């Protein structure tokens, strides 16, 4: 095997506001970083700007791994390619009718726009039954006619989605064949191809998302690779998927739906990687930005994956993705006093525009970020840099007037109350996420990232009984780091749906073997050096009569049915504290992930070692008054100047380019030798 070990690797993540980039050169150990505004109309410009800002030499670069929001934004804003649907007669409205829901439990308003409008949803005579037997043969002439109608309507891509195609795809395959004959088009998605499971709405939406973003993603990748090529780049471009793995840019649009959520997923992958190297395999990731907060769970260095992500109301994408939950509040969440005289924080947000008052873009309502400013937790000198020249006094006046007066508090008291309520709400939401995944937060460390995560993490950890907080070297560009460390990954789900007591003991091993073979073949096609192949097996099980599934991890593919029963009962009891020994169990899905693991990367240089000072005192920037339960004279350190080993007792603040780390009184922060800060809550350790 030739040496394909990349020297210089770039990870670049395009977020809603910023495009973040990190370059690691394995051979020289050099690290370059940049953060530039995203260019959402054509994200490629932002990527090129980021490369330029970091001073990356494209000709000397070996690999680019890219996380993109192209597909997510297209779906959320419904800026989609013109897409047609050919479906079973009588069922063209499935994508619009959904599952009989409303957006909120209370409130009878609400709207839903289907991905494909009704006049582009065409029906053809054909029908399979649930057993996959033909009830009505496919009328091929109708497929031809429908294709012509969609071509004439200017469609770029098309979905073929037939009832029960997961049981027998013959009609979908034949219809796609006919389509290709008369309509040479690489943008044909068959319903069963991404997701071979029953449930016509979920499968259909997944396919419709795929088809309607395919041309957009194709064009984007083409533009990007062209531009990179013109800049002298000759290496591979890989794109992050929502499952936390990456695929070649050449193939990514075939399964474009899988790139949805790729940004949040890569952040979680970075957390898993960082945690594993530091010996912390169990993490709750906490990514707080300006508009939202994302939470995910990592067990034994493996992020939790879900096949049932819903990216917004009635928009399920049922392919395996890192289970990232958005729990609301961000720095821009607005605080107000409700008619009952109680303080509320969120759910309304000042968003990015006008944003918090402290952004100086016309925001006039108090937010979480403003409260941090009033309390001295954010650097007030930064106010001078903003456009509007907002003064701290101005913010304090708003807090005193809008919140303090009705609550009987001064500006400081009001700001402290905002932080306390916001932290309580976020802690509650994190707790619900971990409980819904069957985990007790106290068994985890909190991995804080995003611009605002490290500012609130210690308080949340205390609220949740979490003993330890981990802050990585570059919390503000964690997603880009996730791109750099990502592995090649393919996930497979096969529906078995068999009662355990009639399960043929050879079935699961043969399913797993087939899944592994397919995954290994896909990985072999990539032009990427692999350290080894990792295979992760699990089954989804339930007691017969139940609808929820419980995932049971397996450490080997050939587990005897009796052992499966035992593993399932243990997992069930651990999760629900309910013992149901008398009820039969069902094996629903066999899952396998095949992961091509890449060489280890050294992340310790993410903060330039040359910047380090010998002593803690030498890293001290300033001291300022910061409010906790009272005002404390608090040291403020510059992260890049911290010595290799240090121990800081709270209260203290560590500032860096991309975030502010708050160490509360009683907590102790220390370096872990790998560039991370570990904060022991209550100082115990």
């Amino acid at each position, binding site marked *: 095997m030739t040496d394909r070990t990349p020297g210089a690797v770039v990870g670049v993540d395009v977020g809603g506001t910023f495009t973040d980039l990190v370059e690691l050169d394995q051979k020289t150990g050099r690290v370059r970083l940049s953060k530039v505004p995203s260019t959402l109309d054509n994200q490629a410009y932002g990527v090129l700007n980021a490369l330029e800002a970091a001073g990356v030499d494209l000709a000397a670069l070996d690999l680019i791994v890219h996380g993109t929001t192209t597909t997510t934004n297209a779906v959320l804003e419904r800026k989609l390619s013109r897409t047609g649907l050919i479906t079973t007669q*009588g*069922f063209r*409205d*499935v994508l*619009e*009718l959904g*599952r*009989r*829901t*409303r957006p909120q*439990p*209370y*409130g*009878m*308003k*609400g*709207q*839903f726009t289907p991905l494909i*409008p*009704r*006049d582009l949803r065409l029906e053809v005579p054909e*029908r399979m*039954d*649930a057993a996959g037997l033909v009830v009505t043969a496919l009328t091929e002439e109708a497929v031809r006619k429908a294709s012509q109608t969609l071509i004439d309507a200017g469609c770029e891509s098309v979905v073929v989605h037939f*009832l*029960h195609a*997961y049981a027998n795809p013959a009609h979908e395959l034949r219809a796609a064949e006919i389509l290709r004959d008369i309509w040479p088009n690489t943008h044909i998605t068959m319903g069963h191809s991404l997701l071979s499971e*029953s*449930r*016509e709405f979920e499968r259909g939406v997944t396919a419709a998302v795929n088809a309607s973003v395919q041309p957009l993603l194709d064009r984007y990748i083409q533009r990007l690779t062209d531009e990179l090529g013109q800049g002298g780049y000759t290496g591979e471009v890989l794109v992050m998927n929502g499952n936390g793995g990456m695929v070649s840019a050449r193939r990514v649009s075939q399964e474009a739906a899988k790139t949805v959520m790729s940004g949040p997923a890569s952040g979680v992958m970075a957390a898993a990687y960082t945690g594993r190297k530091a010996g912390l395999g169990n993490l709750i990731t906490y990514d707080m930005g300006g508009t939202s907060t994302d939470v995910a769970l990592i067990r034994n260095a493996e992020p939790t994956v879900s096949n049932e992500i819903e990216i917004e109301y009635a928009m399920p994408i049922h392919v395996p993705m890192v289970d990232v939950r958005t729990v609301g509040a961000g720095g821009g969440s607005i605080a107000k006093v*409700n*008619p*009952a*005289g*109680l*303080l*509320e924080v969120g759910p309304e947000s000042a968003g990015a525009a006008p944003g918090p008052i402290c952004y100086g873009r016309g925001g006039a309502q108090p937010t979480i970020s403003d409260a941090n400013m009033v309390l001295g937790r954010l650097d007030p000198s930064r106010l001078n840099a903003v456009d509007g020249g907002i003064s701290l006094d101005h913010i304090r006046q708003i807090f005193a007037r809008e919140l303090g007066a009705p*609550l*009987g508090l001064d500006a400081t008291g009001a700001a402290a*109350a905002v932080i*306390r*309520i916001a932290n*309580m*709400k976020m802690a*509650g939401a994190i*707790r*619900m996420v971990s*409980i*819904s995944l069957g985990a007790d937060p106290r068994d985890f460390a909190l991995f804080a990232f995003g611009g605002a995560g490290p500012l609130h993490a210690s308080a949340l950890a205390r609220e949740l009984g979490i003993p330890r907080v981990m802050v990585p070297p570059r919390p503000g560009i964690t997603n880009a780091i996730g791109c750099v460390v990502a592995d090649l990954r393919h996930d497979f789900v096969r529906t078995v749906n068999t009662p355990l007591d009639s399960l043929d003991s050879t079935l699961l091993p043969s399913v797993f073997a087939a899944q592994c073979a397919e995954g290994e073949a896909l990985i072999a096609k990539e032009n990427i050096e692999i350290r080894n192949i990792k295979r992760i097996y699990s089954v989804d099980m339930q*007691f*017969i*009569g*139940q*609808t*929820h599934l419980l995932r049971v991890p397996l450490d080997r593919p050939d587990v005897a049915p009796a052992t499966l029963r035992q593993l399932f009962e243990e997992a069930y009891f651990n*999760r*629900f504290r*309910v013992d*149901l020994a008398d*009820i039969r169990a069902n094996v629903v899905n066999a899952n396998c992930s095949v992961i091509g693991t890449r060489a280890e990367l050294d992340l310790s240089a993410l903060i330039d070692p040359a910047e380090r000072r010998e002593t803690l005192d030498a890293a001290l920037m300033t001291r300022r008054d910061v409010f906790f339960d009272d005002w404390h004279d608090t040291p403020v350190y510059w992260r890049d100047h911290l010595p290799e080993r240090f121990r800081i007792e709270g209260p203290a603040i560590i500032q860096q380019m991309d975030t502010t780390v708050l160490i509360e009184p009683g907590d102790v922060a220390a370096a872990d030798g790998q560039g991370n800060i570990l904060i022991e809550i209550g100082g115990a350790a």
Partner: protein
Amino acid sequence: MTLDPITLSVIQAGLQQVCDEMDLSFSRAAFSPVIAEANDRSDGIYSAEDGSLIAQGAGGLPVFVGTMQYSTRTLVEMIRDGKVAAPKPGDIYIVNDPYLGGTHLMDVRFAMPFYRDGQIYCWLSNTGHWPDTGGAVPGGFSASATAVEQEGLRLPPVRLFKQGDLDPEIYSIITSNIRVADQRIGDVKAQAAALLVGEQRLNELMDRYGDDTVTQSIAELRRRAAVQMKAFIHEIPEGIYTAKAWIDSDGVVNEPLEIRLAVCRKGDRLTFDFSGSSAPCAGPMNSVRATTYSSVYLAMRHIFPEVPMSAGAFEPLEIIGIDDTFLDAQYPRPVSGCAAEVSQRIAEAVFAALVAPLPDRVTAAPAGTSGNFALGGNDPAKRRDFVMYQISGGGYGGNADHDGLSNGCSTIGISKAPPVEIMEQAFPVLYHRYSLHEGSGGAGLHRGGFGLDYEVELRRGAARASFVMDHGRFGPQGVLGGRDGEVNKVTVWRGDEAYVPEHLSKEQDIPLSPGDRVHVRTPGGGGYGDPFTRPPEAVLRDVQLERYTAEQAAALFGVILKGQPLVVDADATAQRRSH
């Protein structure tokens, strides 16, 4: 000690968290799909003195928002009066009696005393919809029952768990009287485990903040919830607002049931007077007092979603005039339709009354029926009996902001309908259509959403079809000049013969043979505002999407279309609309 408002907010969020965790725990561990998938359950904390609501899970089924406090109140009173055995720590009562603060028999309530220092501090309670509690028909929705005994097993409050252990004798009585009994132990354990989760979390909360602080906070939160509700009430100008709403029939006697409502806003109070509503009925379309109250509360919460779930929020609301009406049925009136249908019509009456004073907040009437179609029979291929339920949504009402949602879930529920593919896997049926009910949205400036149109065929064996639906005679009401949504339509095709139920939306045990088909079209939502003011381009778009025909565009919206492709004929439209 004085309470600061921040501590109050913290305790409020903490109590809410306890309830949300109970909800989550119950759903995740439950067996019944009605609970696990459809979240037809609710958990809460209730006062020791009178059962009044302290906090309730945010994800609970809306119709339980008020019922559980009446259920708990009745239990507390019965214990006080010696009619029910007093509790010991670890006891859990089970009760499903509709007349003791309940809904229908299928909603089974558990209640557990929560102790601090050996005294009952409050009650933890939850409700879960069991798939069956016995009675004449599987599932409990008998369209023609004339007494509650035909609807299922009625349980007074008894201690199913005694000091932590399930009483096998009581449990055997229950399992001997219900269908698919072997799986119920899963639901029973899940329902009890949820209360234990609540107990643990509430103890943690009280240990952390102190019993006195929590106690004072609960009282103060109740007071403030009332203040908040009063602030919303003041958005309504003083005056009396009236409305009517109708149920097609009770399933036994083919005559409409009428809800008459006069809402009076005076000072801080809002009075809901139902005087003059129809008398208790022979069939199962009766409501019980707790469900009627709850329906008013949930309607108010749909209008003001910001209101916290607390007894205090309900204090300024007064409900009168239900004595001797079908909204306060007494034993042994049948009640299976109370939670699924009557409650939605009560909410519709509240919406219809308050849309005039609150035009920005209140929508035109939503479809307002659970669309319950049950098919029971024998599948010769699988050699077993089956019962299939198809619930379905309908259009929501147009509103000040936009058109109504299509195929929304029932007003009182949050449950999803099962996919066609799952139904066909499980039952010997084949769906021929699952589509928009074209033309069903009530015309308006903002039209109603569209209902559902499905047709399903029995493939083999023999089966009987039953329907408990509504709005077959009267469409969901349009408001402020908007037209009513299209009515619910049921047609049963037996061979070439079309059969329409005499009661239109309700009938029991219609025999089907293989090849016979059931065709259901659910209601569209009511329209909002004058349809002649709807932008012609929006009407054209609806016609292009085949939601309405060109003829309907002219007749309902006064928009004349011409040409191919269609365009708006502006002159003809202006002329038509000027009349």
